């Protein structure tokens, strides 16, 4: 109580003095000292790259000579002259709009189902579902599972059951490549968003459910829609954001399983195309243009989805 009084007194005094901005900055100098190291790196490797992407996208920078300003030439090239861009753009959208929503729903569904279980089983299944993301490089094993000859596990099983007549070159054939990669990507779908869901469900107030049950919520579906989902809006939003950036950024898996670049760019995304243009051809200007476009796509999708979710949860 005394502390509180003291505080209000201080506030009164400060109002008389009217802190100037410079004084407030000086007053918080210790805060700035603590923030500085992280923000320095963050500025160097995130903020500056984003800003310079935008600047470089209007130049013909190639790492060797000084960049020249070329106006919207890169953007024109991207829209009118670059057939590969159309392919990778389409692939990115396919990945984003198939793996994105499915991963999001699976993340929630599994988290919700797991939450029904006892403590030990729940912890075990969380590990199983998170394992593909956790162990990062284990997706290499898919190159054995999807191996193009009869020794490949998937081919072997399908041949054995007589579902296919001859081995399918899952990761070489352009018709199956994208599909195979989508399956692998879905297998790796339960990432940060999933953990947020598991955590959100677990930390919910149990008495809320008991109250709801007494008030007539009679099965788990009603509970899901009337109690669980409405009180999870923050987690739903956070996971959506995580999922959107993940599904627009599909790249590592493609490079590892299908090569870099893939056969006739049939499964490349904007991300791998940026790497191709930037680090193999050193066309930094054009690569930056691609990055700006991808950046725009992610931002726009995030903006739309988070707004929809907010509206949905406000109702």
């Amino acid at each position, binding site marked *: 109580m005394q502390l509180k009084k003291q505080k209000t007194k201080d506030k009164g005094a400060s109002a008389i003095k009217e802190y100037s901005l410079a004084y407030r900055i000086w007053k918080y100098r210790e805060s700035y000292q603590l923030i500085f190291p992280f923000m320095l790196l963050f500025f160097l490797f995130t903020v500056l790259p984003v800003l310079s992407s935008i600047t470089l996208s209007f130049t013909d920078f190639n790492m060797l000579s000084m960049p020249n300003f070329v106006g919207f030439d890169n953007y024109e090239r991207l829209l009118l002259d670059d057939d590969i861009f159309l392919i990778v753009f389409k692939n990115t959208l396919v990945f984003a709009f198939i793996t994105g929503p499915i991963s999001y729903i699976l993340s929630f569904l599994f988290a919700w*189902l797991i939450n029904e279980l006892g403590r030990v089983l729940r912890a075990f299944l969380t590990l199983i579902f998170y394992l593909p993301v956790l162990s990062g490089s284990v997706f290499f094993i898919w190159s054995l599972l999807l191996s193009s000859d009869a020794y490949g596990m998937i081919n072997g099983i399908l041949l054995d059951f007589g579902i296919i007549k001859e081995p399918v070159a899952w990761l070489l054939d352009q018709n199956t490549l994208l599909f195979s990669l989508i399956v692998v990507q879905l297998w790796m779908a339960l990432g940060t968003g999933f953990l947020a869901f598991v955590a959100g469900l677990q930390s919910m107030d149990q008495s809320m459910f008991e109250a709801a049950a007494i008030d007539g919520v009679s099965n788990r579906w009603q509970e899901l829609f009337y109690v669980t989902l409405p009180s999870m809006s923050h987690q739903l939003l956070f996971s959506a954001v995580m999922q959107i950036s993940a599904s627009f950024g599909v790249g590592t898996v493609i490079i590892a399983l299908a090569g870099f670049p893939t056969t006739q760019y049939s499964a490349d995304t904007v*991300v791998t195309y940026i790497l191709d243009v930037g680090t193999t051809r050193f066309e930094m200007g054009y690569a930056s243009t691609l990055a700006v476009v991808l950046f725009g796509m992610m931002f726009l999708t995030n903006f739309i989805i988070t707004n929809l979710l907010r509206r949905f949860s406000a109702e």
Partner: protein
Amino acid sequence: MARRNVLFRQHLNRSLAGNIAVFLCLLLFGVFFAFPVVFAINTAFKPLNEILVFPPRFFAVNPTRENFIQLSKMVAEFWVPLSRYIFNSVFISAVVTLGHLLLSSMAAYPMAHHNFPGSKALNTVIVLSLLFTSTVTYIPQYVILANLRMINTYWAIILPAMQSSLGLYLMRSFMMGIPKEMLEAARIDGANEKRTYFSIVMPNVKPAALTLIIFSFQSIWNYVGGSAVYAEQLKGLPALLQSIAAAGVARSGVTAAATVLLMIPPVLIFILSQNHVIETMSTSGLK
């Protein structure tokens, strides 16, 4: 009834049929998710004649250590010794993980509790940066590293990896749960900000710290190294795994063995810190 309580949590409005459905559903998907990992472990212990058999066998019939012995022989022939790969992986992972934890928690504390000029703008920037993957910044990052003369050094891997904004975001969300009174009490007792950070804030955010450690460790441990580092003697174990995997089907036993070994550290850390991760993620919600 008693057995059901071991498997399921107590709820008032759950039907037995529903519980069975949940169980079957989880079993089905659990198998799909565990399948490749179990397959990897099995393949690692298969002798060559079991790998090249049709129809392919899922489980190893005569488990053998052959692949692991082969792996060590194969690695011994590389011109960069295995010890160097291990050193690189451990060194880079340790520096990145601890550096990331220190820097982001130092920054998170004032951002969670002080209303300094610019704090709102910084928070907005951090949330905005969650909206895109770091891959879009890859090219200019390369240019910046080149200008700092850091290409082909450890720094090119370490510094960009230390500034993950997700870590800062999670830490800040968790720190907001520390009661203001506790911090004020420390201040009245004469502690300055650094002292408060080290002796009041940090001991209270142990779960979040472990979460940052596992997230940061898992991504850097599996990081192959982009084109900013090309010297083989600076690369870590995932790069080694890649060159082993390039050898094809005949070497798949060895590839699987390497994959399994590489998987162990992050899995162990996660198992040990899982409860804390869950506790931290429950504060992660975006408003």
